[in-house]
């Protein structure tokens, strides 16, 4: 989850999120370079003693500042497309979990082998145990096996919602009448928090998502106990 005074993204828990972190570093560096160049030029413009400010011929600089941004944009687009295609690679998931958005909670269905389904409501602030995170904890966490590719099928029973878990680089809209798919693969165990990311009514801020990634043995024990 987020921690105090955090400036950047949460630490990646999946390879795709790592790629996204590096891409963000690359793009942000380009943005900083351009912004500081522009700021410097503005400061030059404001402090010049020169007085001739009407239009002059400037073919060379105009060529440069047309070609150079095109090159910069290509340098941003190519890594971006690479990651986009990487997300759509065929990866043969071992497990499929369905999640339905409701106003205002998520419900999860593990129907590969048996029929396991449950609702996941946020724990109200007054019922939190000491040390728990306000507006982020839920009564039933989504337990999943770590280091395994999992297919998530996301939809909604009423209005638009969005199932998002930032540390895994996931955000997929839950659209009524439509089934959206995303794949999940965590490289480490732990609790990963997310929040509904599409405005859905009064309690939109109060329907979080908590993934509990555990070794396969614990997952099997948990799913048996939940039936």
């Amino acid at each position: 989850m987020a921690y105090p005074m955090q400036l950047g993204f949460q630490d990646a828990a999946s390879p795709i999120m790592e790629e996204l972190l590096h891409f963000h570093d690359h793009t942000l560096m380009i943005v900083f370079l351009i912004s500081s160049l522009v700021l410097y030029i503005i400061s030059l413009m404001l402090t010049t003693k020169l007085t001739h400010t009407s239009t002059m011929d400037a073919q060379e600089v105009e060529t440069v500042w047309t070609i150079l941004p095109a090159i910069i944009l290509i340098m941003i687009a190519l890594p971006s497309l690479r990651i986009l295609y990487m997300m759509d690679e065929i990866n043969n998931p071992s497990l499929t979990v369905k999640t339905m958005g409701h106003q205002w909670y998520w419900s999860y269905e593990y129907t590969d082998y048996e029929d396991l389904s449950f609702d996941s409501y946020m724990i109200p602030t007054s019922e939190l145990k000491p040390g728990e995170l306000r507006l982020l904890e839920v009564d039933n966490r989504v337990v999943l096996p770590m280091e395994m590719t999992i297919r998530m099928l996301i939809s909604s029973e009423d209005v638009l919602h969005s199932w998002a878990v930032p540390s895994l680089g996931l955000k997929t809209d839950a659209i009524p009448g439509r089934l959206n798919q995303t794949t999940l693969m965590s490289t480490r165990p732990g609790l990963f928090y997310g929040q509904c990311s599409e405005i859905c009514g009064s309690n939109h801020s109060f329907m979080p998502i908590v993934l509990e990634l555990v070794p396969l043995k614990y997952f099997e024990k948990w799913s048996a106990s939940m039936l």
Partner: protein
Amino acid sequence: MSFRAAWSLTLRKGGLGIRGIHTPGSTAHGKEKMPPYTNYHAQRSYPMPDEPFCMELNAEQRALKEKEKGSWTQLSHAEKVALYRLQFHETFAEMNRRSNEWKTVMGCVFFFCGFTGLLIWWQRVYVFPKKPITLTDEWKAQQLQRTLDMKGNPVQGLASRWDYERKEWKK
């Protein structure tokens, strides 16, 4: 052509009955145009306007303009300065002079910032609801302990800065 030059040309042909505008030493204020509606528009980016500053010249000034048509080495320093003043309203140094406007501006900015501060303070006292229990120091400490226990952000974030062997923050 600059906007100002075009504007002076339009005014000239506008048939507005333009007479001498800035004539130092002249007391005749007939149909002359009051500032800022004159034909003389000089600015840092257009420092040599088409028209001179003084349009109406008295006899002495006209004699000086005749002398200007000859060799300039014949002109004394005072005459050159007089000719400059006929042609231009201000020198570059005068035109670019600093002012004390910034003090007024900064004063008003600080005043309004202070006033806004007072408003916000009042709001904090009389409007905002109570802070939730999770913002007490005790709860924040327990929350931190829980985050470290679950190794949240162990790569470069919070848990990566905690030394689990020695149970203290890494130096």
